[in-house]
């Protein structure tokens, strides 16, 4: 069950990751090897089961759901790529809205 050029382009689109034509052949070959390697898990019979593994405590203790300002060493305008009038600024949605 290997992975092909079209799979890589499809997944790159899902991941919002630009992939150039030049890097595509090597990337496809490397991803194919990784996918072939991890596919060995199919050797484990589906009926072989253990209690599901859950990371962390049995019961997660949540803090009170109270809105409070997060203490920051500097304001968002200092670390946001673009910030104006209390808002994070992004380009127009344009092409995405057309799809």
């Amino acid at each position: 069950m290997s992975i092909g050029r079209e799979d890589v382009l499809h997944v790159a689109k899902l991941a919002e990751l630009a992939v150039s034509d030049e890097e595509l052949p090597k990337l496809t070959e490397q991803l194919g090897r990784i996918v072939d390697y991890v596919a060995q898990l199919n050797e484990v019979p589906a009926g072989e089961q253990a209690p599901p593994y859950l990371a962390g405590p049995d019961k997660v203790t949540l803090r009170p759901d109270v809105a409070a300002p997060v203490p920051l060493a500097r304001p968002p305008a200092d670390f946001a790529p673009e910030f104006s009038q209390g808002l994070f600024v992004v380009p127009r949605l344009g092409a995405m809205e057309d799809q």
Partner: protein
Amino acid sequence: MSAVESAANAVREGRATAAVGAKEVASRLEKAAALNAALSWSAERLDAEASRVDGATPSERAKMPLAGVPIAVKDNIVTTEQPTTCGSRILEGYVSPFNATVINRLRAAGAMIACKANLDEFAMGSSTEHSAFGRVKHPDDPSRVPGGSSGGSAALVAAGVVPAALGSETGGSVRQPASFCGIVGIKPSYGRVSRYGLVAFGSSLDAVSTFGRTVDDAARVLAAMSGHDPLDATTIAQPPLVLDPPRRDLKGLTIGLPAEYFPRDLHQGVRAGLDRAIKAVKELGATIKEVSLPHTRYAVPTYYIIAPAEAAANLARYDGVRYGQRRVGPAGDLRALYQATRGHGFGAEVRRRILIGTYVLSSGYYDAYYRKAQQVRALLAEDFRRAFDTGCNMLLTPTTPTPAFKAGEKTEDPVAMYLADIFVCPVNLAGLPAVSFPVGRSEGLPLGAQLIAPNFAEAKMLSAAAALESAVDAAAEVR
């Protein structure tokens, strides 16, 4: 007495000042520049760290278990004073508006943050060659890698620049470089240490972990930052780790040797190092028991489905809007911004893992890969439970299948690189604590062994590791 204890005692008792210690660290960081292990530090920053300790009252200082101890911090743990790059161009120049909980706790314990340490980009790698800011060199042989992904922290401890350092583990990223560099690396139980402020990679796996030149050095740092944190709901509601007094023997303990970690084709030097550790276990009075962890061979493929899947989700935030050096794509719209920012900002290994993670979570492949990996992860955790249920207090294994390899040896073959984690990543999949400690050298290169313990049995595990450390001559060549 360990380096950390002795340095802290001297400052606490007024026989030394943090300011002098800070100047010495600055000088050592300068001399070690060729290792490329530190990404950001300054003498001024170190002076400010020292002032906080020296400016405390004697009674305040007396309560600081790490008074004046300089600690290097892997650059995926956020600090407000220095940049946090995660070894990535996408975060170049980013300075966090808050400190990680572990940073606040170490400072409260009197520690000085010495520098931010180089790493594989977003902690993805086993050699610290995948940093956007250049590879880290092994302190004993610059042509070799220090291991990864916490290779900068490991190299700084091994080179004697700092007595202890913070790294992070997702699949062995502290124990593996500890083994390659001939130092100690401790991975705590999942939930023992807060991850608030650790940049997320694999959220069901990540653990802030520690390095030291001795078990005691690394353990003291771990104890100081452990304990429940209301800002991280995955921490266990337990008090901080209390270390056991050092043991002189291992009487009454049963140490398991899992057959799958001692394959016939195991590197001869690694095998000889483990033989030396096993001999010491017997001489110290423990009982040896052979056990089996039958799903071990599936740990690396399981890890390389689960970790990339979690990484693909966690790294979605680096989009040029919330985080990341923004680049506007040719179409000029939001999607072009995402794709151009991420396409340009991430390096080769991070891109591979995001793509694999997205693939195994995508429609039509989720059951075949991700759900299957969760099934096998449960079986791997069950293997460990059964071994401990048969009476083993701990398991002893090699940390790595080989000593440190040459730079460039595995960079073009991702699967070969992933196999460097074969003995360390099962522990992360099961959330267990483990410690790697040096057991000798093969052709001049350090070798490591690891003890793996049941969940939250760190105190017993670390006292046993300290006893073994005293009984094994880590500087001697194995035969």
